[in-house]
């Protein structure tokens, strides 16, 4: 999905360039379709219905927002311009994720850092747990095949499988 967005952005950019190239011909083609409006609205969140994407929010305020997007599209605004307009007017919370500035880096940095820390702790713990058994393992490979769990049925089972191989 992300990649299609990027594609869409690229396509829009190309379109814009093409538009520039065509010169200042008042090239406002046909009216934007609902789908074009929704493609942008999907990425925006209006403060009136929190955490609901704009394209599905049923309130009157959001309907107006969508109309505004339609109007801006018909005036030839790009997707990025439209998003920027909404950020300027209604704040960064209209975006689906915090913009990567200042304190907001926390939300991008914290999870990877914590996960890395977790992985590190786990790795260290596993290494300490390994120590006794690696020496045992060296003593005899027979030791390493652990007693096959609680029921002797499973060991029978394993044996059976070995036979079948």
């Amino acid at each position, binding site marked *: 999905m992300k990649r299609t967005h990027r594609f869409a952005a690229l396509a829009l950019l190309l379109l814009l360039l093409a538009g520039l190239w065509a010169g200042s011909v008042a090239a406002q083609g046909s009216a934007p379709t609902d789908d074009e409006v929704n493609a942008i609205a999907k990425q925006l969140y209006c403060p009136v219905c929190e955490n609901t994407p704009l394209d599905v929010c049923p309130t009157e305020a959001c309907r107006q927002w969508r109309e505004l997007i339609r109007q801006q599209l018909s005036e030839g605004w790009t997707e990025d311009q439209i998003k920027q307009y909404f950020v300027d007017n209604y704040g960064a919370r209209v975006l689906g994720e915090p913009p990567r500035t200042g304190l907001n880096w926390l939300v991008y940095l914290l999870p990877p850092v914590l996960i890395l820390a977790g992985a590190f702790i786990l790795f260290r713990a596993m290494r300490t747990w390994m120590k006794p058994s690696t020496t045992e393992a060296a003593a005899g490979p027979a030791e390493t095949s652990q007693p096959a769990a609680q029921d002797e049925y499973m060991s029978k*089972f394993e044996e059976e499988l070995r036979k079948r191989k």
Partner: protein
Amino acid sequence: MVADFGYGILVVALLVSLYSVVAALVGVRTKSAALVESARRAMLLTWPLITLSALALIYLLVNNHFEVSFVYEVTSRSMPTYLKITAWWGGQAGSLVFWSWLMSAFASLVTLRKWDRDREFLPWVIVVSSVTMAFFLTMSVVFENPFARMWFAPSGEVIKAMLQPAGSTAVPLQPDGRGLNPLLRHPGMIIHPPMLYLGFVSFVIPYAFAIAALVTGRTDDRWIRITRRWTLWAWLFLSFGLVLGGRWAYDVLGWGGYWGWDPVEIAAFMPWLTGTAFLHSVMIQEKRGQLKQWNMILVMLTYALVIFGTFLTRSGVLSSVHAFASSPIGPFFMGFVALTFIISIALLIWRWPDLRSETEMKSMLSREALFLLNNLLFMSVLVICFVGVIYPLVSELVTGSKVTVGPPWYEFSTSPLFAMLMFLMAIAPLSSWGLSSQEKLANINKPVLGGLLAVPVIAYAIWWKPISDIMGSLPGVVISLAIILIVVVLMYLFRKLLWQSALVASAITIYLAFTYTQNLIALIGFFLVALTLTVTLREFWRATRARQNAQQENFFTAFSRLVGRNRRRYGGYVIHVSMMLMAIGILGIEMFQKETQGMIPVGQSLKIAGYTVEYKDLASWDEADKGVNYTRAVVSVYKDGTYLGDLHPRKDFYFDSQQSMTIPGQRPTLKDDLYVLLIDWQPATATGATFKIYVNPLVNWLWIGSLLFFIGVIIAAWPDRDPEYVPARARNKAYQPSSAD
């Protein structure tokens, strides 16, 4: 009158549970078995008491007693009786009583069990359950009283109180109530909250046992054995609640999805994550005596997340579509949450040395290692969820500006972790037996393991948004390569056990690449699904055959005995298979969802993904007795020129609550789900109506998977013939029942 009765009973229940706390504590102090027994009986009394109170509330709801504020808020005359009953949990005040009622039922159940072997746990389990009980009852009695009537204060404000406050005048009896929010009238919403609450509430029991084990110092495996099955049932309810919530959202919210990464959803999802991690790691403690500390943490964390999440959503701290309006319970609730956290952490720190386990691990690729990796991944998802939920509060506090941490962020952050979890599910059956006997594997040394751990970390780092944004469209490829690399390395390590399945899975993936999609991420997903399914099904097949040969049984007997004798293991595999079916649905809707919207006059049609949806007709009418206005469109669906049938998307407008509900017209198939919404219409049908149409590929596998999931959990949680005890293994005999019993 009935209101006074209900309220009075609620107060009595509160006093009884307080008595139960005190009696249990004093009983422990003075070693008085009689007092503890009295506490136990007091606790047993709370359930009938709250039931009476609840019956009083239901009576008021059903009989339109609009002088009672809660009844006025959630019911109206036009609602059918069954909805008036379910309105019990349709608002904050009622749902708190509902919560207490469920809680007391569970507490009673657990106190009715045989306690012979675990006498010393009993008082502490009583204390924990009764304190929680008393806390919820206090909220009902003091802050959110469902029996309160409405009065006009001298200032003209409406206040809610049981007795007439000084200087106030009674609000004249309202002719009709405001009615239940239409979104809550859907069958899904009727069952979804109870299931979720059941899940939440039942996690109190494992927590109570954990606390009891810590306080008494009896920190051997006993408490885990007692609570294991409880946890499984609690987990079942919680999962059921989550899935029903998803289904409800899909059917009612009209956004063509089932999960919106909304803070309230995540608040319910977080305990599920820790609960799932616990269900896995508890097996290691049972089999190997390891991870005692960690399991204790997980049980406590699960309960902590349950009450923390409940607090966040009910106090109005989180803003969300699902959140309850700002409520006076906030500070009191926060006090309780803080108390729980402090006591839990303090006890853990105090008993930490006693929880140390004999440490041994055969190999870095043993079952233990895989379970630990599983735990790491679940904890990672938890960390992401927690940061995502909490960060908007931090931002609002520090910078003063609100931010949205929404679906794109969560999807990006969690999807590689989910992919890795899928891979772990693929190799799970190998971990249960064959793995440890592979001498080769035992020799795999640290660098390899370090590498194995590093690959997911690197993959995650690359996936990590800021980097991937800088690198443009490269990451999609890089991530895919990284995941492919992990899979290749692991497959190499598990080659003896995996290669046949890997071959099958690869063949399926290649087939899909030619026929269905070229999307790399989707293909990786489908590969992991195929791998897990083949490995797991093959395990069923192989084990059944082995048993068939060994026991001279026919195939079906062998199969059912195999599963029956190893319910937890094979139940677990069924759950894994169900997860894969769900993954198919999630991949389908996430990667391939298509939508279109347009206004069309009658006779015209919209086209999407091979479907043609033709607008036929529209009618709007009132049903006065139900208090609803229905607007229903008729659309005909064609695929490649063939007529498939009519769909009827509607919009229902409820007069009492002045809210409307969008009901999609759905045409579900295994391949995809055609989902038509009526967005808007013009009075003159010639002008047209606006439809929004989604095609959600494969989404129905999500619901099929959910059904299988419940079957799996029920297999795993089904009580043993002798539920009480599995013979203690050598390391457990250290514990000798000590006290007087």
